[in-house]
């Protein structure tokens, strides 16, 4: 029954990963600053990374760790894209507050 939490070490790592993920999710929903929102999505990715590495150690294969490398790559690509988009928007609007978006609402 305790499939996921049978190994004490695994459960700790999984909990860390899940907490990181949920903290990121909660932060993403509650924050309004775009940089903070972006950091929150990065935190969610890192939660996934911790989970993947934990499972990788549990299953004794490196597939999870390989996955992590690709996740990091995508995270970096998204970071570059986010930086570009946010700079573009900031130069037009002079604010990073997502609630200040006037042109689009709802």
């Amino acid at each position, binding site marked *: *029954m*305790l*499939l*996921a939490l*049978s*190994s004490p070490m695994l459960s700790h790592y*999984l909990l860390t*990963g899940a907490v990181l*993920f949920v903290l*990121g*999710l909660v932060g*993403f929903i509650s924050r309004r600053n*775009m940089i903070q*929102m*972006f950091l929150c*999505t990065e935190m*969610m*990715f890192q*939660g*996934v990374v911790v*989970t*993947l590495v*934990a*499972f990788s150690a*549990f*299953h004794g*294969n490196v*597939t*999870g760790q*390989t*996955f992590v490398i*690709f*996740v990091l790559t*995508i995270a970096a*690509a*998204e970071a570059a*894209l*986010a930086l570009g*988009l*946010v700079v*573009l*928007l900031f130069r*037009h*609007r002079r604010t990073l507050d997502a609630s200040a*978006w006037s*042109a*689009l*609402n*709802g």
Partner: protein
Amino acid sequence: MPTIADKLAGLWPEIVMLLGAVACLAAGLSASARTRRLTPWIAGGTMALAWIFALWTGIDADHPLGLGGVVTYVKCLVLVLGLVLLLVCAGVPEGLKQTAAAEGARFDPGLSVRGEFYFFFLLSITGVMLTAGATDLVWLFLALELTSLPTYVMIAMTRDRTVAHESAVKYFFLGALSAAMFLYGFALIYGATGFTEFGPIRDAVAVSSETGLSDPSPLMLMGIVLSVLGLCFKVAAVPMHVYTADVYQGAATPVTAFLAVVPKVAGFAALIMVLHLLGLDRLPEPVLYLLGAIGVLTMTVGNVLAFVQTNLKRVMAYSSVANSGYMMLGLMAGLGVPGNALGNGPAAVLFFLLAYGFGSIGAFAVIAALAAQRSPDGADHTDATGVADDLEYDDLAGLWWRSPVLGGVMLVSMLTLVGMPPLSGFMGKFFLIGGVLNAGFYGLVIVLVINSAISAGYYLRIAMLTFFGESSSAPAVILPEGRRGPRVVGAVIAGIAGLLIGGLPGNSVVRNAREAFEPVPAPASAEPETVQAAADESTASAPAVARSQAAGLADAVPTP
């Protein structure tokens, strides 16, 4: 163990697309103006060539989930839609003020975005093709990101207005959130089974139900649920639909057409793959409830919100949400009886994607070929291409009498989306409803029919307006030849295709969609014995590993 050469053999269409994309990038930045003007032609030629390659490489009989047919179908589907979308989108980067500045007396590569636009266009479509062809969770994740990342840039760069940048940022943030979500789902699937390859995952799931642990394990189920929720962003389904109207309105209309179709195809291809890890025929109850709830909420929210909008692009955005809801129900309907298309839900989804795609592209192409004359709040609604595309209902008044071509396409698109009998949308809905009925979800069929009735309210309003509408203010004007590019051609092709695949040609498409889910007879080989031996070895080893893995897990689990 397939060698790298075997793996690459099935990826020729994608390789062609990537080479073509790089060629577009190079041509767009070329020093010669003539080469630069060739860029859209290179993009079109690449997609046509990739289509030929996709048909030529044929169906992969060794697909780990037995979905080799779906892979080929989706690749061809997205290439066909991509060719029509290219007609609609060509001319977008060329019309930008920025491009005009870059193409001055001396070409400024720093300012030009033409090469990048077609580069990202092709990359995104390549992403869909790779999504369909994925046989591994890592691959699926990368392919889905390859589909999405270019679209964020396409929104931001094709319109020099803050509203476009805002919608790009909004789309990006929700996209990142959804990516994290389905990635967490993938991580849990990996955790539950110990594999990222589809074949072993499927075997492990089968084994875990054999050993009577649970069917399937809660961790696996959690992973599937999170993956489905994350993928809802790609198809614009309910928990992740909030961006749709804003982003579709903010983007330049041709790009909106792209957004309404391409990520949706990727999303449904990925959903079919992920759900088939559990078996589309025997989805466990929690997943069925989830899909049903998403489907019902999505279509209801989409249709109700579309009904109250006045901006045409927002109406079409919510219509796109609603259509995702219909297709969600198709996913839960199961595969039905082999040889009978009626009752095969996922096959209906594949067909519906085509019908919806042509209907949507037609409607957006007509909107893209028009420009509003008035500016209601005094603000300048024209973008860098000088087009005001914030069209309202009134702008379409009497379009038929001014341009029978555009009016006709709009009419056909709307009737397709409503699901009028002779058109492709009717066949799509017919097969969807057939599938859902076959699976015994009568309540859901009633919801679907009621929703279709609501949707008829706004679709038919648009259709009626193009004929009988009389505008109080000045209706939208048709863009002059030079500014609209080949949009009208794209609109006409989408309209004709929407008409045709409702008729006889549609039957063959339906047959293809149905056969996509049926096991492919192994191709005749020169050395049947060695192939057979290799196949035996690979199929024998994978479940053995899965079995030992599951047994190990079973030992580790304390019995309550």
